[in-house]
């Protein structure tokens, strides 16, 4: 091989260069010789090669022509060499083309049976196929069409069937793909990057006419390939689809068929071949289209849900291609192809989606333009729409069945097709929906598909507590995390739900909002079975109508006019009507808790409504009892439904409420700021549900509150409530007067208080008065209901006005540490002692006065307070006034027969004390008034109440210690210490179960509180001794650990009060070390605990001594 890289460009030199090798090859056909030739060929430049083409091809062809079996290797080498030549040159003579074509085909087929591929190596087949491909590409435009003359039919047919057989049966994917590519090239529809001949219409007609003969065989074989083995890889499938689309597109092309087929005069010498020639007449077309539609159906169903996106993309291409070129002649297939296209609109792969959108846009434009151009074809767009709406209708009909029977994948596809239709129809949806049959079908389908599974038991059982409300109030994310997933009967995949939702939104976006809301509201009212689904659909329709969550490409049939039909006013009117229905008495006040808890509510029924003179009221008309609906027992006074309400019904009610709450959130999103005026009516309802006991409902309500506040431009729930408190309070105040009808009013107030801040207080003031008045009017029935309001109120007040209650807690700490660190200075002690004594005797008082000069500031403060006049009391801040009022009620309620209520009241009382603690002047009289009742709770009540009362006492002790001292030491301590003493031996002997008893809890509570109570109250020595006496047994290590710990805390507090005496007491019990007097003059100390052996008390005593005195 010459080392020169430059190619030979002189034909003569090239000829001389190639001649020896060619001659050798002709003489001796061997692989080596072929390789020499092909090696040399690479040194010849293209133009020169073209001139020598015939010459160099000859020896190669000669090799092939030699009769007898040939080695695979040789043929392969020849094919490769020929490919090189053909790839770089053109074939200008028909002879060459024809001969080469048949020779290559011969290489492929088996020598015995020309119809079947030869049993040769894959490499060989690949090489030959490549060569064939190169040949077809190299053929000149004027000769290539000769291939399609009728005379060629048999040869062509053989080649096609051969290639199809290779494409279908071959194991190697590469060979399959190459064969299919070859086939594509053969019908001049190749899509590779090389330059191709563009056939004119006449030429296309000629090719098409010839190919028509092979179409049935070709399409069936191709269909087999496409629908064949799924494992064959996407490349083959894609190629096959390409062949199919180009072949069908070629044969069935509308343009070819439109102009009447020139009557072909077949030369008589064709003989039998005439039978092969097909005349593309009307009836042929019809039957072909019919057969094709069968194939298409198979192919589409196989490819549209194919796992590989390229296949799906190819499917779109196919549909687009065929719809574009032969929509008229394909007849029945159009619907199928359209469906396939529509189904791909929502493909998960964006490339497929985009392509599909383009295709659909083209389809619709084509239809539009054709209908515009030719008056005769006016019906074209009509038919297209008809096809679409027909398909939609039939799909809607079969949807419920499909949703019940097929798997999730299939369901998703079906729904995607459904959505695709809607998108393609676009604004025409409103036209389609005007047909009652369509609307009915679609809505029924949605109703059935969206049926909820309401059997989950735990939904009913979950209860919300105020604590959860508070935690969730901090952020919206928190809430959304809690929202429960809906369970549907017919599907589980979240994707399916989102497609369904998008279907609804698209309906809302393009449809007539009045028609839709009316229709679905009818369904909502019609039957309990449809109610929840209808609400879901309505919610999404409204969102869609506002353009939320709708992908709005301008494809579809609308052309340039945009299809969004709903304006703000219409939307608002629709929203108002839906919301009115949602929040109407029947649909809003549903039972969500089972009967036992319902009993409380039934109590309220006893409150007879104050019947006054007859006055019309619009609300009354709403109470038309729907027999299917569970009516809250508070309405129908003795409705049997409450007793029959099963878990199923309760769940259903809960979900309905959740959906409706979500709906209100959707509406606010849809209307944005325009929703603000609607807050007047809706916010109260939502808050009502936010206070609901059922966790799911209250969380849904909170969630929708967040959405509403975002939609209306409030940064948080607090602002939402504060800014609209006038609306809320109005309803609360009205409903408080009609508690029997509106027992939720206190709940709303509770929610308001929980989420708001002190800026609400001035507004709430008069409502609180209303509450208290309503409470005063009927303690018996409403106490339980109002107690929770009072609790929420006091909790809110305690939060808004953090008072000294907490401050004192903090202030006690430094005191303790200071005493800890105080180092006893004997000298200073004696000096102080002397000074005290002198003072007591009246010496040095004047000096002292001057010392205390820095005291006056507080005096001035008092002056300021007295400036208002001696008799006029300074007006109390309103929160303190409210607290006083509440405390007043607590005094009455403390002796309520219901234990539950008493406990709650004690909680309220504690909060009252906390809030009032900032004004001692107010607290003390109140404390005095509630003392007797509290004492009763402390001394003669259920252990639980005692526990709670003790906590109140401790809180009281922290704030008004002096005031309580005498009372506690006289009335409380003796009882407490005696009970402690009494219980000590029992708890010491008890087992682990004891810690679950009330007695244990009582002991624990008493011990935990006693220390700080003693310290706060600054009790006298005798009392301290009594306490100490009572507590000592609990230092025993036989007591439950927590009791020991609590007892230790008592002693820690006691040591703060009087370190010395308790040091002594402890050492009496157990003394770890001997004390040597600091001076020999002093007597040695003898403590009774000294030298005692380790006993049950030693550990705790040592611990205390170490902690407090070292």
């Amino acid at each position, binding site marked *: 091989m010459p080392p020169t890289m430059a190619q030979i460009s002189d034909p003569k030199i090239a000829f001389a260069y190639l001649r020896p090798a060619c001659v050798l090859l002709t003489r001796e056909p061997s692989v080596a010789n072929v390789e020499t030739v092909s090696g040399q060929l690479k040194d010849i430049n293209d133009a020169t090669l073209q001139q020598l083409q015939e010459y160099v091809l000859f020896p190669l062809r000669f090799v092939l022509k030699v009769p007898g079996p040939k080695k695979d290797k040789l043929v392969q080498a020849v094919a490769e060499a020929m490919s090189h030549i053909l790839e770089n040159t053109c074939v200008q003579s028909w002879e060459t083309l024809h001969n080469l074509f048949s020779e290559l085909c011969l290489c492929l087929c088996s020598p015995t049976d020309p119809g079947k591929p030869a049993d040769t190596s894959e490499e060989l087949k690949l090489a030959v196929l490549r060569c064939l491909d190169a040949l077809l590409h190299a053929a000149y435009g004027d000769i290539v069409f000769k291939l399609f003359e009728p005379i060629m039919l048999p040869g062509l047919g053989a080649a096609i069937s051969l290639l199809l057989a290779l494409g279908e049966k071959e194991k190697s994917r590469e060979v399959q793909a190459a064969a299919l590519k070859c086939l594509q090239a053969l019908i001049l529809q190749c899509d590779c990057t090389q330059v191709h001949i563009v056939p004119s219409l006449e030429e296309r007609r000629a090719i098409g006419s010839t190919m028509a003969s092979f179409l049935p065989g070709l399409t069936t074989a191709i269909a087999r390939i496409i629908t064949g083995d799924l494992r064959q890889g996407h490349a083959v499938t894609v190629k096959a689809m390409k062949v199919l689309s180009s072949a069908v597109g070629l044969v069935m092309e509308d343009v070819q068929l439109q102009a009447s087929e020139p009557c072909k005069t077949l030369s008589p010498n064709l003989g039998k071949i005439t039978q092969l020639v097909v005349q593309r007449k009307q009836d042929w077309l019809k039957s072909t289209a019919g057969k094709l539609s069968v194939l298409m159906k198979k192919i589409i169903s196989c490819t549209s849900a194919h796992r590989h996106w390229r296949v799906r993309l190819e499917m779109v291409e196919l549909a687009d291609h065929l719809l574009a070129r032969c929509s008229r002649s394909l007849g029945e297939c159009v619907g199928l192809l359209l469906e396939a296209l529509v189904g791909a609109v929502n493909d998960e792969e964006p490339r497929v989606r985009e392509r599909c959108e383009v295709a659909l846009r083209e389809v619709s434009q084509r239809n539009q333009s054709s209908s515009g151009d030719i008056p005769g074809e006016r019906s074209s767009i009509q038919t297209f729409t008809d096809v679409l709406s027909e398909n939609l209708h039939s799909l809607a009909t079969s949807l419920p069945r499909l949703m019940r029977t097929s798997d999730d994948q299939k369901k998703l596809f079906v729904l995607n097709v459904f959505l695709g239709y809607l998108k393609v129809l676009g604004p025409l949806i409103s036209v389609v929906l005007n047909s009652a049959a369509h609307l009915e079908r679609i809505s029924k389908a949605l109703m059935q598909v969206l049926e909820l599974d309401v059997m989950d038991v735990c939904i009913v059982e979950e209860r919300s507590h105020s604590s959860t409300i508070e935690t969730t109030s901090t952020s919206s994310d928190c809430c959304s995390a809690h929202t429960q997933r809906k369970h549907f009967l017919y599907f589980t995949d979240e994707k399916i739900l989102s497609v369904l939702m998008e279907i609804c939104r698209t309906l809302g976006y393009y449809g007539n909002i009045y028609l839709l809301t009316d229709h679905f509201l009818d369904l909502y009212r019609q039957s309990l079975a449809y109610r929840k689904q209808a609400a879901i659909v309505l919610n999404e329709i409204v969102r869609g109508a506002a353009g939320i969550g709708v992908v709005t490409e301008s494809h579809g049939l609308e052309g340039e006019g945009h299809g969004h039909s709903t304006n703000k006013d219409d939307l608002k009117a629709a929203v108002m009507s839906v919301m009115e229905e949602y929040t109407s008495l029947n649909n809003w006040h549903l039972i969500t808790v089972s009967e036992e808890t319902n009993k409380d509510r039934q109590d309220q029924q006893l409150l007879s*409504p104050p*019947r*006054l003179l007859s*006055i019309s009221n619009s609300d009354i008309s709403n109470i038309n009892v729907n027999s299917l609906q569970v009516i809250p027992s508070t309405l129908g006074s003795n409705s049997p439904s409450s007793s029959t309400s099963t878990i199923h019904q309760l769940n259903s009610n809960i979900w309905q409420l959740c959906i409706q709450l979500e709906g209100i959130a959707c509406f606010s999103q849809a209307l944005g700021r325009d929703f603000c005026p609607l807050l*007047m009516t809706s916010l109260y309802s939502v808050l009502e549900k936010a206070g609901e006991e059922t966790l799911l409902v209250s969380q849904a309500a909170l969630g929708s509150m967040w959405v509403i506040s975002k939609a209306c431009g409030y940064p948080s729930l607090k602002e939402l409530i504060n800014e609209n408190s006038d609306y809320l*309070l109005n309803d609360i105040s*009205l409903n408080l007067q009609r508690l029997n009808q509106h027992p939720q009013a206190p709940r709303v107030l509770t929610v308001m208080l929980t989420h708001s801040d002190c800026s609400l207080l001035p507004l709430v003031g*008069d409502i609180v008065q209303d509450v208290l008045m309503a409470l005063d009017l009927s303690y018996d029935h409403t106490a339980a209901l109002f107690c929770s309001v009072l609790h929420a109120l006091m909790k809110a007040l305690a939060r808004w006005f953090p008072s000294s209650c907490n401050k004192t807690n903090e202030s006690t700490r430094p005191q303790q540490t200071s005493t800890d660190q105080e180092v006893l200075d004997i000298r200073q002690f004696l000096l102080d002692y002397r000074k005290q004594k002198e003072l007591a005797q009246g010496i040095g008082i004047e000096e002292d006065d001057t010392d205390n000069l820095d005291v006056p500031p507080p005096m001035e403060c008092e002056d300021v307070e007295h400036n208002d006049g001696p008799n006029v009391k300074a007006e109390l801040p309103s929160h303190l006034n409210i607290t006083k009022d509440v405390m007043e009620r607590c005094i009455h309620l403390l002796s309520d027969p219901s234990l539950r209520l008493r406990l709650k009241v004690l909680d309220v009382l504690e909060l009252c004390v906390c809030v009032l603690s900032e004004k001692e002047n107010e607290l003390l009289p109140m404390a005095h008034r509630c003392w007797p009742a509290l004492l009763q709770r402390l001394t003669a009540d259920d252990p639980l109440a005692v526990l709670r009362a003790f906590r109140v006492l401790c809180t009281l002790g922290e704030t008004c210690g002096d005031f309580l001292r005498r009372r506690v030491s006289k009335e409380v301590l003796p009882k407490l210490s005696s009970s402690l003493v009494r219980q000590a031996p029992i708890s010491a002997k008890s087992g682990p179960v004891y810690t679950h008893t009330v007695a244990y809890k009582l002991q624990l509570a008493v011990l935990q509180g006693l220390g700080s109570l003693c310290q706060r109250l600054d009790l006298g020595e005798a009392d301290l001794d009594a306490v100490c006496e009572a507590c000592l047994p609990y230092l025993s290590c036989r007591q439950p650990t927590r009791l020991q710990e609590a007892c230790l805390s008592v002693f820690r507090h006691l040591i703060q009060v009087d370190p010395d005496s308790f040091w002594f007491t402890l050492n009496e019990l157990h003394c770890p070390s001997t004390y040597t007097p600091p001076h020999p003059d002093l007597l040695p100390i003898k403590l009774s605990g000294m030298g005692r052996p380790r006993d049950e008390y030693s550990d705790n005593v040592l611990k205390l001594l170490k902690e407090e005195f070292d």
Partner: protein
Amino acid sequence: MSRPAPSPIYTLRGSGGPLNTLHFSCLGGDTPLLFSGSGSGAIHIWNLNSRRAEKIVEGHSGSSVIWVNSLQSKDALISQGRDMQVCLWDLREGRSEPVDSVWTSSVGFCQCSLLDSSPGNYLLAFAGEQTEEIKIIELPSKTPVCTLVPDTKLGMVMCIKLWQHIDTDIDPHQLKLSNVVVFPSGRLRLLFHTEPDSGPGPLLLAGYEDGSLLLWDVTQRSKLSQAKAHPEPVMCLTFDTKRLRGISGSSEKKLTPWMLDGQNNLQLQDCVTLVNPGVSDLCIRDDGKLLASAGWDHRVRVFGWKKLRPLAVLQYHPDMVLSVAFSNHQDPRQRLLAAGSKDQRISLWSIYNEGADNG
């Protein structure tokens, strides 16, 4: 059939003081308004669509506002305060400043009364400086028209009502030709006048501290008739100019209706007895079908105006009701009743208005 007592359709809160007076302005414009005057000296302009105070104006230096009214259009407001001033307000284009004021020098609680005398002109009656004195001036010129003082001692003026016979259809038989004018163009113009006794001179009804009612002829400045309607001071009165029938309330348990006969004589009719004593305000609906009373017993009572049949007791306020007003909304179905109370709230009621068109 007895239906449960209605609740207010809404309550307006946040006025910051007892609500002495209410006045609706629902004609024209798209937002119906309600004016309220409170004991804290503020005049609230409530938007009845959003149910929130649209504007709050203060012009009586913190003294209690006892009367508000609007002049023809809702853009001009007139208010009376206990600072002895009557203020005129211009509310056009979002303004809210007083444009004029009249010094009444009356220390009492008597509310003014306003009468449209001719387009753009108003007569304003108010209690004067002297105990029994009533002054009438013309607005906006502020020219005094007359001062009415009774001969006998009747005590303070408690309430007044200025009104005029409205003859919607003039009886042609009562017309007398008074003059003929011949214009230069040759056209004739006949001028008629009606009989003097049916003449539309403004009249004034006044209730006094001793319980007397007096009817004054403003143009003649003379007392037309007098009746002792109550043993206690007359707290309020209202008058139906179509039926020539009025009613007054006092601190007792009675409402006293009375008629004007053809000779303008006051004739007392049978009393209506109430459950609890004390009425602070009375109001007749424009269509002459309903009468509402604001009771000291925290209740608003509604009567049929023709026969004074009690129809409803509206209970909402926890304190004295001080004022009532019916809205003048064009659509009878949207007509409201408003009640202002000492508890600083205004309650709005939608009652007896659904069948307004068929009676």
